[in-house]
Structure formats: C-alpha cells, structure tokens
C-alpha cells in the first residue's frame, strides 16, 4: 500500500528565510504527487503537482524517484505562506480508480 510521510508536524521560519517542507512516499509504481495548501479555516487548494513542473506562489517541488521524495521549497518565505501543507499521492488502484493518499500535514508559520 502507498504511504506519504511528512516528518515535520510544525515548521517555523522568519520572513525572507528559505523554507523546505519535506515529503517522502512509498509506492513501487509511478505515482502522481501533489502539494495541497489549507489556509486558516479555508478549503484545501491545489498548490502544485509534479507533472506540471510549475512554480506557484514562488513554491517549487521536484520529484526525486531515487530518494522517493517530493519536497516543497521556497527561497524567501512570506507571512502569507503561513498555512497547513499536505503532500498527497495518487495511484490507479485497479482499473481506473484513483485514490488520493495524504500525509499528515505540516503547519508552516512564517514569523515577521
């Protein structure tokens, strides 16, 4: 079974500092990986997915199949980046069923 691990429950940085939110996964096939963000008391929103290779709000994430990691990075954190971040993995579970497995999340706080 697939699993997503976010080793840090809490991460606190100062404004302007670099930030890296770690995500490791276990799956023997070729997964699709996502980062979702949830601002305080709001719905989850897609931040980025690995196949698009986009940079959203200054965040990037590179899939490292050798290390089975998909870490989220931003060179200069902003206060508005404070949120809960979830790494997620989707795989086809027989036929065309696609289920999303979430990590437990990392709460990022960016201090002024």
């Amino acid at each position, binding site marked *: 079974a697939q699993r997503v691990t*976010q080793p840090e*429950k809490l991460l606190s940085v100062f404004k302007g500092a670099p930030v890296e939110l770690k995500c490791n996964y276990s799956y023997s096939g070729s997964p*699709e990986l*996502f980062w979702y963000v949830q601002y305080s008391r*709001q*719905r*989850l*929103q*897609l931040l980025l*997915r690995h196949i698009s290779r986009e940079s959203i709000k200054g965040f990037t994430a590179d899939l490292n199949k050798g290390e089975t990691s998909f870490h989220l990075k931003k060179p200069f954190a902003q206060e508005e980046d404070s949120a809960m971040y*979830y790494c997620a993995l*989707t795989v*086809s579970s027989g036929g*065309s*069923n*696609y*289920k*999303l*497995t*979430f*990590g*437990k*999340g990392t709460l990022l706080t960016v201090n002024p």
Partner: protein
Amino acid sequence: NAGVTQTPKFRVLKTGQSMTLLCAQDMNHEYMYWYRQDPGMGLRLIHYSVGEGTTAKGEVPDGYNVSRLKKQNFLLGLESAAPSQTSVYFCASSQLAEAQHFGDGTRLSIL
C-alpha cells in the same frame, strides 16, 4: 460556477442521532470523495465513488454510509453518531487522475 458545495457548514449532534451530509459538484466530475480531517491525522478517506450509482470503501469507512444516486451529488450518512466521529468532513471531486477540488468542509460535533 460554485465548484464543490457542502451542506451544512456546522452541526452539533447528540450521540445516537443520525444525519446526512450533502456534497454537490457542478464540474461534471466522475469521481467524488469524502474525507475526515482530524488534528495530527491529516485527511483520511472515508468512502469514494467512481461514478453514478457506485461507491467504495476508503481507509476509515466504519460508521458511515454513502450514496451516489446522481452524478453531481455524493451523500455521507451517519446512522448512529458517536463522539469519535467529531471531525471536519471534506468532500472532493476530480476527473480521473486530475487534481481533486475540495469543498469548504462541514464541522461536526457529537456530544
């Protein structure tokens, strides 16, 4: 275009009561999902559906039932609510392996 709409937004129940959470999507997505979000646990999949008339169990299905009578609606039912079901419930929809779109959530407290 509302996306994914959940009703109600808040509800307080007594142990043993029943209720249904409603989820509606207007994006013509095939797949719909119900998750619960608990502190320190992330999001856990309760049930999901890959099309009208189909449902399947997720990671934590016990105590819940679902129905997908219409493509745009996915209902989550609690037959006999228990305090352990106090949580924030999120509905989501997606088209195949595309990103999931989430609703605003339903905060459910069971006393």
